[in-house]
């Protein structure tokens, strides 16, 4: 691939990263607002629903943390795409491994918030398993489950890529030695 082409792709990818960052910032603002309001509701110990509010606070906090955890991943991706633009090739195993670890952390946070969100919907199972499960898995829940699965797949794919990159680097070293 030509250097100009690589540069254009790198710039496009980084522009997309900026857009994702902005969307995440906006989302984080909404999440922080939710966390603050659920924290205020939790503070009243005389309220009979205090334990529900406490769980709601934990759930909101996990969602907020998962939105915040996107930023380190974006920073690592920025570095990888920058190197792609410079034509450095595939030898970025350290960055890829770090990205896989960050994606795994994000998957964990998303899975935690999924569990909390499901726990709020358990009472819907009262109408029987066949009708209860679809009632539990509403639009928001499905979106979060999809995000979690996608993030888990990303973790695995990036991990596999980091292994390939490592092998490529080893082969390049061997070739250099041979020459």
């Amino acid at each position, binding site marked *: *691939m030509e250097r100009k082409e690589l540069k254009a792709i790198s710039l*496009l990818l980084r522009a997309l*990263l900026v857009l*994702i960052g902005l969307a995440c910032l906006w989302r984080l603002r909404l999440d922080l607002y939710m966390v603050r309001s659920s924290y205020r509701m939790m503070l009243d110990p005389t309220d009979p629903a205090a334990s529900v509010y406490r769980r709601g606070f934990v759930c909101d906090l996990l969602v907020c943390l998962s939105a915040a955890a996107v930023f380190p991943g974006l920073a690592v991706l920025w570095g990888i795409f920058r190197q792609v633009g410079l034509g450095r090739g595939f030898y970025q195993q350290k960055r890829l491994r770090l990205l896989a670890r960050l994606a795994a952390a994000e998957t964990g946070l998303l899975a935690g918030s999924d569990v909390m969100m499901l726990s709020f919907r358990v009472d819907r199972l009262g109408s029987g398993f066949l009708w209860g499960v679809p009632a539990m898995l509403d639009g928001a829940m499905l979106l979060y489950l999809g*995000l979690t699965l996608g993030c888990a797949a990303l973790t*695995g794919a990036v991990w596999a890529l980091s292994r390939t990159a490592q092998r490529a680097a080893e082969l390049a070293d061997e070739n250099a030695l041979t020459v």
Partner: protein
Amino acid sequence: MDNKLLSRSLRALALLGAAFWLYLAADNVYHLVLAARGLAWPASYGTFGRSVRAESLILLALAALLPPLWDMWVLTGRCGTGRGFDEDAARRLRRMGRCSGAVTTLLALLVWVMLYDRADRVPEWMSVLQGLYYRLDAYVLDVLFLTLASAICTAVLFLLSRLAERAALEQAVNDLTI
């Protein structure tokens, strides 16, 4: 981690993804049928019309995800055999990129439809930016995030397919040299 173990975990994930895809498709078809039935009442034509539009776009995006799911299954299987990048992998990666591009376009359309549907939340005296502030709720933001992530996926898959092509070419040259 051993290559075979990695391949198995990825395949387990792909299976989970396929089960999730099936559930999502069934749920989507159910909602689409409900919304289509609702179109029979002229009074609620607008509301159900919006639902039909959004659900059809989601269904199309889901359909576009099928070939990449299959390719992912095949490619993750190869992870365990240590075959690496070759011409077949390049072809599959290119197809995945094309499908990912289609999904990105459909999701972008969905974001547009969702923003358009939320127009009634915005008073007339507001500017475009202020209006956007009222329309961008958590749901729209999540779909927007998915759209952008899908766009990045498309570009990365395209890059990987080129890389695989080059690897296959180099392998062929090496074979000739030997």
